[in-house]
């Protein structure tokens, strides 16, 4: 394709190795990931027209945690900069919109999450409806399990299907140097484990991961200065649905994913590779259906979110992995997805294409 000034591409992606427990701070992680991606595309930091990060105070347990993280940008002289209390994939979206303003050519988006500081079985109780859910200690595993049970009861999937998702992702992760959980597992072996929240077992849940990642985006022809085969963003959208799963009409499907996928033009052509952010194994099944993917699409060659799950980073890594399939792996059309909130409340879909 001949890019216009409004075409924007991912031209660089760096992620740090995922760790169950890093001894670095979030600021350290931001510094290392941004230094790496800047070096990768071969620019000076002063060439970046906009920098934006995604992180969350409650994960690390520190108010204004992102403020210290900005020390890693070297903001002298002052830079254009912003922050979202969302996954780095949404930071990438803000960078994309910022580039569309037309006055700058290069932007950097960062995601960072030191998840190991908090306990996922209790932390997310404060992310839910503060009047009706938080006082019951409603946890994220419980809400996922209720969704999984509904999926089973709908006849669309079985616990064996869940285990197969896990086995495939962990096997895929073996070839991903940035996977935390990987290996060969038999479905029967997985199904023998105890439930953490019936019908979910430990392996159906996401791992706890400390990680950071960064992408560099470029606009128009500038992208070719930074990358031989840029991953052009040809469609991107995100949607949210009602917060309480109890007022949604059908939690065995994801309306917000379907709407975002339609707006991003997923169905306009075949998707070679999809990097889907399914924190819980069974959600991959819901998401594949709602994204409208068929058997021709390779899903999560990285091992996906079951291989490493740093909340606030995991979505941006999906973007980076899907982009790298174009930049480094010769694929033509790929998809990245991220989710947030209880039972897939919010979903972002990004379609990227390489020059043919």
């Amino acid at each position, binding site marked *: 394709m001949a890019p216009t000034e409004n075409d924007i591409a991912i031209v660089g992606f760096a992620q740090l190795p995922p760790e169950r427990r890093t*001894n670095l701070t979030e600021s350290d992680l931001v510094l290392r990931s941004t230094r790496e991606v800047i070096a990768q595309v071969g620019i000076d930091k002063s060439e970046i027209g906009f920098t934006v990060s995604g992180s969350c105070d409650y994960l690390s347990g520190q108010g204004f945690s992102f403020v210290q993280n900005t020390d890693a940008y070297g903001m002298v002289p002052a830079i254009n900069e912003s922050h979202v209390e969302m996954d780095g994939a949404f930071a990438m979206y803000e960078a994309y919109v910022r580039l569309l303003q037309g006055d700058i050519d290069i932007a950097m988006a960062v995601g960072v999450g030191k998840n190991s500081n908090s306990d996922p079985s209790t932390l997310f109780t404060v992310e839910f409806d503060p009047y009706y859910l938080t006082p019951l200690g409603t946890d994220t595993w419980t809400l996922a399990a*209720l969704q999984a049970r509904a999926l089973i009861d709908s006849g669309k999937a079985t616990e064996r299907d869940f285990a197969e998702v896990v086995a495939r992702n962990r096997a895929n992760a073996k070839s991903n140097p940035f996977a935390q959980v990987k290996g060969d597992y038999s479905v029967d072996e997985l199904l023998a484990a105890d439930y953490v929240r019936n019908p979910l077992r430990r392996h159906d849940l996401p791992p706890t991961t400390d990680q950071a990642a960064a992408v560099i985006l470029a606009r128009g022809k500038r992208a070719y200065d930074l990358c031989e085969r840029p991953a052009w963003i040809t469609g991107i959208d995100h949607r949210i649905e*009602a917060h309480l*799963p109890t007022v949604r009409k059908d939690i065995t499907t994801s309306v917000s994913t379907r709407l975002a996928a339609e707006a991003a033009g997923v169905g306009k052509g075949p998707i070679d590779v999809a990097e889907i952010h399914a924190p819980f194994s069974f959600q991959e099944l819901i998401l594949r259906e709602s994204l409208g993917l068929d058997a021709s699409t390779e899903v999560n060659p990285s091992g996906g979110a079951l291989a490493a799950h740093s909340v606030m980073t995991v979505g941006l890594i999906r973007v980076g992995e899907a982009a790298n399939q174009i930049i480094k792996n010769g694929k033509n059309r790929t998809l990245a997805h991220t989710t947030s909130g209880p039972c897939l409340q919010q979903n972002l879909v990004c379609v990227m294409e390489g020059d043919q």
Partner: protein
Amino acid sequence: MADTVQEFVFNLTFPFTRTLGSTLSTFSSALAQGQIIGVRTGGRVIAPPLEYDPDTAADSGTDWVRVGPKGTVSTWTWVPEPTNLHPLDHAFGFAFITLDGADTPMLHLVDTGSESAMAAGMRVEAKLKAPADRVGRIDDIIAFVPAADPSPSEGAGEPFVAPEENDITEMDAYCDLQYVDNASPTTIMWAKALMEGRIIGQKCPQCDRTIVGPRGMCSVCAIELDESHIVEVPGRGVVSNFTIVTPTPYPGQTETEPFARCSILLDGADAVIAQQEILDVPVSEIRVGIHVEVVWAPENERSAADIDNRSRGSGGDIIVGWRTTGEPDEPAARYLDRMM
């Protein structure tokens, strides 16, 4: 010597108070009286009620409907090991329960004693706290239990007439989250030096600026600083600026009297150490230009236990504070702009 990786436990605890607004107040006040209600909006009864129709955001209105106390489980899960935030201390179920008279389910606990007793379609009924213990919060319902009599709830679906004024307008929301952070290499470097009675900075090889305290990077150049960039800075300097804080009370506040925190420009180091306490000058007499020197805790009393990743230059228990040297004050104007 605390030279291994240390973990710091931080309990984020706070008694939040939530004001409820009219819809939630109506629900809460009715619940405290033992009545569960929903609201009819957008052609369906939502229970517990929301202020807005989730599909359209239109105001839900006040078409209150009595629901429950019995209902039917549509989907469920089981919590074999409750956390400190769950209301029950023994294994229990969570379920979507469509209360009689309601069109949408509510999420709540189901206390059956055993996982095998849980099933979709089971009839359950609300078990409420004793009237005196109710505060109008959703956990006034202790849990749902299998219904002794599966027949429909009496009065469910009938209108509920709300009182003109609700007696419950607020709810307590106690936050109790535990965080465990570990000391970063930079923090350990800082703590070790302090234990040895040394204050260190890191000097950026690119811009030559020295930063005192555990940062591990130059915020101007965006490069990593490590042990090779350590420079020792003197424990003597001049107060360059200060703040005097009149503490306001809040849960967790440790201070009651005005206290001062000073920036000190260290002698010959072109670097400032911030947030320091002067021991021998009354708060009302703190001023710019005073010569001070660091006061170390005796070696056998030093502990790095309080020096975590967030303290960013705090001396913990190791630096007790700073005291005047007796040298005449420097002119304030020469120092005042060195807040940093």
